[in-house]
């Protein structure tokens, strides 16, 4: 009996983009705040 893998790549892409956006945004925010404390 062949098993099919669920097609849900869109959720994975969304999670990976959201994580990158949050981390990069905070890194940029910190950089800007530390330039002008």
């Amino acid at each position: 009996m062949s098993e099919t893998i669920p097609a849900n790549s869109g959720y994975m892409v969304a999670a990976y983009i959201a994580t990158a956006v949050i981390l990069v945004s905070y890194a940029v925010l910190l950089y800007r705040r530390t330039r002008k404390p």
Partner: protein
Amino acid sequence: MRLLGAGRWITAVGLLLLAGVYVRALAFTPIERAQGLAQKIFYLHVPAAIWAEAAMVLVGLASIFYLFLKDPRLDRFAEASAEAGTVFAAIVLTTGPIWGKPIWGTWWSWDARLTLTLFLFLLYVGYLLLRSAVADPGARARYAAVLGICGMCLVPFIHFSVYMFRTLHPMPIVLKPSSPSLPGSMLATWLFSLGVFTLLYVGFVIQRYALSYLREQLEAAGEVGHV
């Protein structure tokens, strides 16, 4: 300031290595048969959850020591750790529902693990708001320390909630007394990701600590108001 420069470099290296985590997770780690590609969210969600909880434990420990020692460096570290923890908690609360929808069929469930994680995020926000609302540095540090200790007490309940309550959330598959229930290649990717999230936590905390220090110097010189 050397500390600030070090924090920036560590963060930059962490972000570069995060790209490496993405490549390894997406191209060089096998697809889990039952969950499909959505399972790969695990490599971001779990390390972020570990650091969201660990950051609050460190806030609590620094707060306890601050109340005894009154060392401003401990208060500065607690503030920095709380802000970094808020970022990781935001990642957990974003990636969790995105993972939950295809696997559980719902974005959110008010079960113990999810609700307590939301409380942790709200506690972080409350902690940071409290700090910004109190002008006197001594009172600010004392009040924040008490809230930080309360936040630390929440963390064991979050971790053990899957054992204590009936919950949709799965049991731990890595952080548990027996050996991890993961194939070697998936475990290696997860450990790589955990290392990168650790580096990012360290970079964020060092920069935030340096920012607090610089602001205190400016406040003492009367050049800037409390922020």
